[in-house]
């Protein structure tokens, strides 16, 4: 894991302490004796880690085993393991359901659009901020663009609704100045994706830019200096010094983004949804919620969720593999 999030462009090799190399020599003792010795000496640490480990087992790993109900006809009386097996029936029913392709398409398009829009913009913002020397202006821009990240999804969605409202919102006032009749943005399915994606960009760009700013500050100033001596313009220095410097960070963020491609913001899509725009706003996650908790079809909802998770995992592995082949950077090494 230590190399996993290693994104510093050219980290100075950690100065190894003289005592450490001696201690790192391959131990003669077997792993079991090692474990026993560690347990005896550090029993307090093992005691300490039990409650949080229990949390992960109960709330993360038990649900994974509970997912067997996707292959069963779940009955609350018999419990997840006692219920009757039905094999892939739930999956087959879902694939045959006419909404299947709509759901997959809506989820996929929404996610791809989100990743494409919210990947480059924070990088541009971070590089632009990095070019500015003026302390106060830079700080103001950062403080303001960072702020929406702290606002809750419920509030961001209701702000979006109010601002775009056909009667009261200023967006319709603004386009009204150009003689465009007011538009009921949220009532039109074809606007849903744009509203979702751009309100997301509005909310998260400042926050994401911070990570790139951190990476930019890790670039050796000597590189910039020598580039300047060689006569590189600002644009050339961005292209040849800054961009390669933040490349590893960008790749990791992109891979994580693609990894979440099928599990994007249920919370927001659900809030922005209304009966008029479901044609494009119904995604797998919202459908799982409706099937599972509103219609109480637990097995079906779990099957759909599982389908989603598995696709997600494969996408992540695939993109990580590709990223490693192309750029040499990946989530894990």
């Amino acid at each position, binding site marked *: 894991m230590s190399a996993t*999030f290693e*994104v*510093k462009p050219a980290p100075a090799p950690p100065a190894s302490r003289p005592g450490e190399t001696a201690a790192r020599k391959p131990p003669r003792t077997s792993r079991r004796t090692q*474990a026993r010795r*560690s347990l005896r000496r*550090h029993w*307090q*640490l093992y005691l*300490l880690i039990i*409650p*949080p480990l229990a*949390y*992960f087992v109960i709330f993360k*790993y038990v649900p994974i*085993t*509970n*997912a067997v*109900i996707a292959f069963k006809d779940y009955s609350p009386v018999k419990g*997840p393991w006692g219920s009757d097996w039905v094999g892939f029936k739930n999956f087959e029913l879902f694939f045959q359901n006419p909404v299947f392709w709509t759901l997959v398409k809506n989820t996929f398009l929404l996610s791809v659009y989100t990743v494409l829009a919210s990947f480059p913009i924070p990088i541009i*913002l971070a590089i*632009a*901020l990095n*070019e*500015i020397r003026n*302390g106060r202006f830079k700080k103001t821009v950062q403080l303001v*663009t*960072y*702020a929406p990240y*702290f*606002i809750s999804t*419920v*509030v961001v969605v*209701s*702000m979006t*609704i109010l601002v775009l409202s056909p009667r*009261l919102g*200023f967006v319709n*006032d603004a386009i009204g100045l150009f003689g465009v009749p007011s538009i009921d943005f949220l009532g039109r399915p074809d606007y849903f994706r744009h509203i979702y994606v751009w309100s997301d960009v509005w909310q998260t760009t400042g926050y994401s830019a*911070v*990570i790139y700013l*951190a*990476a930019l*500050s890790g670039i050796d*100033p000597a590189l*910039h200096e020598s580039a*300047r*001596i060689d006569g590189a313009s*600002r*644009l050339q220095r961005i292209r040849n010094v800054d961009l390669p410097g933040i490349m590893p960070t960008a790749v990791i963020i992109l891979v994580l983004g693609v*990894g979440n491609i099928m599990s994007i913001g249920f*919370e927001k899509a659900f*809030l922005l949804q209304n009966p008029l725009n479901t044609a494009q706003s119904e995604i797998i996650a919202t459908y*799982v*919620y409706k099937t599972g*908790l509103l219609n109480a079809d637990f097995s079906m*909802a*779990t099957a759909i*969720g599982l389908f989603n*998770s598995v696709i*997600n995992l494969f996408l992540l592995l695939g993109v990580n593999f590709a990223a490693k082949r192309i750029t040499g950077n990946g989530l894990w090494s």
Partner: protein
Amino acid sequence: MSVTLQGFRRTTEKRPDSSRRTTIEETRTDKIFLAGVKIMLWLALIVVAVPLIYIVANSFSSPSAVSAGRVLFWPVEPSIRAYKEAFSDPMIMKGYLNSFIYAIGGTLISVTLTIAIAYPLSRRTFFGRNVIMSALIFTMLFSGGLIPTYLVVQDLGLLNTRWAMVIPSAIGVWQVIIARTFFRSTIPDELYEAATIDGAGDLRFLWSIVLPLSKPVIAVIALMYAIFQWNSYFDALIYLKDPGLYPLQIVLRNVLILNTLTGSTTTTNLAQQLDQQQLANVLKYALIVISSLPVLIIYPFVARHFTKGVMVGAVKG
């Protein structure tokens, strides 16, 4: 970090004098480029700030001005009626109180558990830490899903209790990574050796030496958890049925998005109905401001620490 960068810039700005021939032309294009960058940043500033200002301006305007759509970026016929109304609504106040309970209680639980797992995992002598770490990362990538998790919460009898808000989402893997990285990079092994010689056990060392030295990272993860709790609505939506337990975000969702008005008395008088309708509009803006206030008030103070936390988590890993 900014110190070295600025220092570096200051020295390089003087350079054009010494090497005139190549740089004069380039400073001109650089100047144009820099101007473009500034315009872009101004644009970003405006795009982000305008909706925020619009909401605040509307919340301080009179109901009739809001309903007529006359408010843009400055309050029209200033009035704090909406705020008075919001603060006298029992559902909203109850939600506010509940959110504070969940945010404070949840943060305490989350921070304790996060340190309890992050600290052992930061110790090189802890056997099996790589296996455990991989198991944690795995939960970031793959999960059982909504319903299987719901079944666990149900089986534990947490449904419709306050615990359902703080326990199922108690530990974030990202926060564990941040805390572990901090412990590993700032607490030298020698310190532990010295403490052991003085007779301290692991817990004693953690309590008396590591925690006091780790205030910055504890502040960062505590704030991350607190803000997460304050802003979350989904756990409440699926786990809570009793309106008395609802956090503010659920109340907000009901008022702002589902348009179910609370507190207002039903009346047949047409003028009063119109008044209620107009009040309902401006109430939305006021609610947005009120609910975001606690987070936005602490935000400028913590933004710096947040930046640090993000850097520690993302850059060093």
